[in-house]
């Protein structure tokens, strides 16, 4: 079977795209039998000169009736391969369709009218092709018959367009003087352009490279889904996705980004085939892992060479939305299978395709191309576009529709590699072993003035003296800095405790003996802390004293203020305190001293510490 190649034909309106396509189809003998003759006959009947562009219209008409091929996808063959021509309308309103069509092409023919010269869409289409990642571009300087096949007319356009292409980091070595109407240099070399020694259009197409050798690049597969169909009696847990570049084999160590998790490929899965051992670029693949790590849609699977991870990128973007793109507006970015909210942080420059200049603007209008800095809400895994284009580009969704696309030029301020919770290399147990202690949380609860902080401070000093690594998180202290935004309403108290519990859990995880003293009046939040830290490492100490005693002590003078109404929501007076019902230790400070309390706790903890 012959190789297939999709080619798009672009260019300014009326520069002769349809004529060239008609010529290619006719001169390669790719039209249905008798078609050319019938169209010519029709022209004679209607007394109008025949044009090759009519062939395309005729095909379109037939297609309306359901006969023959799709005009948006014409075919012709050479000895080397089969070409599929994706027709792209040149009218400015159809840029959306042009992008849709051209993005599927592997090569492009860009048509410029030698007589009319380079126009806005000649440049815009060139720019869009480069953005879309189509690197094989052949420029056809058309209508040479209208400029008497003058070498200078051709050379002027070549020079001017080359200059433009180099300004957007693009090159093309292929500039062909042609006439679609007269058939010069389309399929065979023309004697009217003897000064031109290069290939014909057909030869130029055959010189293009076929499929890019994507298999040789680093392995990249955006995870589309993790499938488990246990209900149907299938116990496999399959990571599925389309491989964009590279190759993966059973036994490979595979990494997932941005999470940084890793595992090993156990098997490559394929429906109806057994003993498949590898899969490569282009395959809609699936594999299982030896270790069941939690991986989800949106991550990029990689082997060896890792993608970048960041929340800030420098990108080149093009905008197709009706509404202009604004800074400070939230959009959705989709890259591979990942999605994240995004903002334009800064617009560096906007290219004016009609004047070939860059200009400063505060917004990106429809059909503009711009360079800007994008900030994403979530960390993204990606590659730089020039390294691996498939994972170096994204689309932007405004409302419900895709409105723009972008290619990543630079990763700014990379997020450290292991940003998401991951297993890491060091476990809690290993940390504890090294520190020769067990990371735990001792949580002191009780009314204000019951003695929580006093006992906690004593305990801390005692443990420290014994060479332990210990740290005290005091409710009041934490409210000074981390929780300075919180009041004493129930929801804020709960948030206060939630944050304390989160920090305590981290400290514990680091292997530290963590002492938390906070009124923590609500049972629900103390239970949350217990769950967060883990039952085995959580010790609840109820520091008990009656309200009357606490009020009498009033070490901070707060009860007095609360009674006078100067403090709202004061626990015991104007806010509730829910007594613990499952505290590991209860210390009645009306009966025992702080020192005795410390002993009690140490006794309880001895085994643990």
């Amino acid at each position, binding site marked *: 079977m012959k190789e297939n190649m999709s080619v798009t034909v672009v260019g300014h309106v009326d520069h002769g795209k349809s004529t060239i396509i008609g010529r290619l189809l006719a001169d390669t003998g790719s039209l249905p039998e008798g078609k050319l003759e019938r169209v010519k006959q029709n022209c004679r009947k209607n007394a109008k000169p025949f044009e090759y562009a009519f062939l395309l219209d005729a095909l379109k008409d037939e297609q309306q009736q359901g006969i023959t091929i799709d005009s948006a996808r014409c075919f012709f063959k050479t000895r080397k391969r089969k070409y599929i021509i994706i027709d792209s309308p040149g009218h400015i309103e159809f840029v959306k369709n042009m992008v849709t069509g051209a993005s599927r092409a592997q090569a492009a023919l860009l048509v410029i009218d030698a007589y009319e010269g380079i126009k806005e869409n000649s440049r815009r289409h060139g720019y869009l092709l480069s953005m879309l990642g189509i690197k094989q571009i052949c420029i056809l300087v058309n209508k040479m018959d209208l400029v008497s096949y003058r070498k200078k007319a051709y050379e002027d356009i070549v020079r001017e367009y080359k200059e433009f292409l180099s300004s957007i980091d693009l090159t093309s070595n292929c500039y062909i003087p042609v006439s679609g109407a007269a058939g010069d240099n389309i399929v065979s070399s023309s004697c009217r352009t003897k000064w031109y020694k290069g290939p014909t259009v057909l030869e130029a197409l055959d010189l293009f490279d076929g499929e890019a050798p994507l298999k040789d690049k680093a392995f990249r597969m955006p995870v589309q889904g993790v499938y488990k169909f246990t209900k149907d009696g299938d116990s496999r847990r*399959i990571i599925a996705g389309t491989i964009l570049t590279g190759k993966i084999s059973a036994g490979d160590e595979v990494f997932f980004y941005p999470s940084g998790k890793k595992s090993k490929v156990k098997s490559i899965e394929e429906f109806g085939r057994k003993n498949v051992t590898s899969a490569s670029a282009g395959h809609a693949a699936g594999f299982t892992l030896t270790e069941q790590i939690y991986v989800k849609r949106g991550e990029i699977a990689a082997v060896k060479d890792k993608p970048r991870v960041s929340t800030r990128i420098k990108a080149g973007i093009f905008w197709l939305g009706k509404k202009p793109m604004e800074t400070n507006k939230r959009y959705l970015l989709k890259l591979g299978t990942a999605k994240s909210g995004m903002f334009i942080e800064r617009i560096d420059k906007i290219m004016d395709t009609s004047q070939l200049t860059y200009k400063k603007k505060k917004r990106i209008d429809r059909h503009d191309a711009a360079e800007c800095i994008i900030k994403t809400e979530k960390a993204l895994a990606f590659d730089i576009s020039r390294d691996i284009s498939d994972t170096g580009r994204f689309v932007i969704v405004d409302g419900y529709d895709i409105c723009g696309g972008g290619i990543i030029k630079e990763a700014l301020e990379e997020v450290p590699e292991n940003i998401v919770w991951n297993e890491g290399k060091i476990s809690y147990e290993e940390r504890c072993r090294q520190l020769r202690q067990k990371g735990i949380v001792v949580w002191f609860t009780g009314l204000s003035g019951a003695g929580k902080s006093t006992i906690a401070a004593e305990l801390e000093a005692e443990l420290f003296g014994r060479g332990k690594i210990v740290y005290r998180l005091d409710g009041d202290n934490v409210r000074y800095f981390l929780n300075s935004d919180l009041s004493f309403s129930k929801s804020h108290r709960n948030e206060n405790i939630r944050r304390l519990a989160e920090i305590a859990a981290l400290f514990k995880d680091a292997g530290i003996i963590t002492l938390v003293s906070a009124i923590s009046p609500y049972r629900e939040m103390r239970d949350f802390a217990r769950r967060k830290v883990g039952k085995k490492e959580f010790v609840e100490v109820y520091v008990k004293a009656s309200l009357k005693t606490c009020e009498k002590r009033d070490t901070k003078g707060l009860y007095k203020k609360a009674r006078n109404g100067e403090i709202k929501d004061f626990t015991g007076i104007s806010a509730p305190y829910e007594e613990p019902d499952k505290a590991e230790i209860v210390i009645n400070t009306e009966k025992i001293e702080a020192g005795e309390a410390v002993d009690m706790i140490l006794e309880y903890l001895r085994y643990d510490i």
Partner: protein
Amino acid sequence: MEHLKKLENDSIHILREAYSEFKNLCMLWSIGKDSTVMLWLARKAFFGHVPFPLVHIDTHFKIPKMAEFRDNLARDWNLDMIYGENKKALSERNTFPDGNTSRLKCCQYLKTDALKNTLNGKWPRYRMNHETGKYEIDKSNEPFTGVIVGVRADEEGTRSKERCFSPRDINNEWDISEQPPEFWNQYKTDFAPGTHVRIHPLLDWTELNIWEYILRENIPIIFLYFDQGAGKRYRSLGCAPCTMPVNSTAKNVSDIVEELKTGKFSNIAERSGREQDKEDGGGLEELRKGGYM
């Protein structure tokens, strides 16, 4: 990569995107060759499973044996099978075969209206109970927001203008001129409440590709496509009163592949045996704008 393999991979990618992005997803299965290939591709995409329901719009005028083929395959492949119908039009005999309306109106009632109201859940859906093998009224009437459809760009003009993920508005209508761009395998997966998205995994396949793939994969296909000895076969399947067979002696899949390769049908539309396309000029385009597949 070989062309059929590439088509297969691209279609699987689209099916997986649809499965991840649409909570209420279904696949329309007409029992014809295209949607049966699509069903096969779904089994490939999900490693032998089809994790969404298949919806068949039953006009009750389908060529006999189609429902039988449907139910057999549904049982063999453990498919979540649903059918919908226009009960009112059928009971009032407001159909073309009953002589009470035109072909086009009949299509409108039995297919377009039935499809619309089955998808949005306003009319009852009938779901196969695999234990009894019988259909029961489905408890769920949640609208489907993603609908996988097996249309191909080369079938006829309007279909070549489709995107892979193509939005339909609240009235099930399709605005050809206002379609969002689609590139880099990124599709329209966000949509306003009340609207839905049609997903077209077979857009790039040709009639020949379909048959070559059926041959290669050995996909079970209803016998109506083959000549049973009378020198005729169906090239496109629909309702019995409005579907005409073509002259052909192709008796199996490889015969059909050979026949298509000779170019015998290159100047005859695939749907030329479908009478409703011919009425009113552009009948199908109008039907499609209103929600027809």
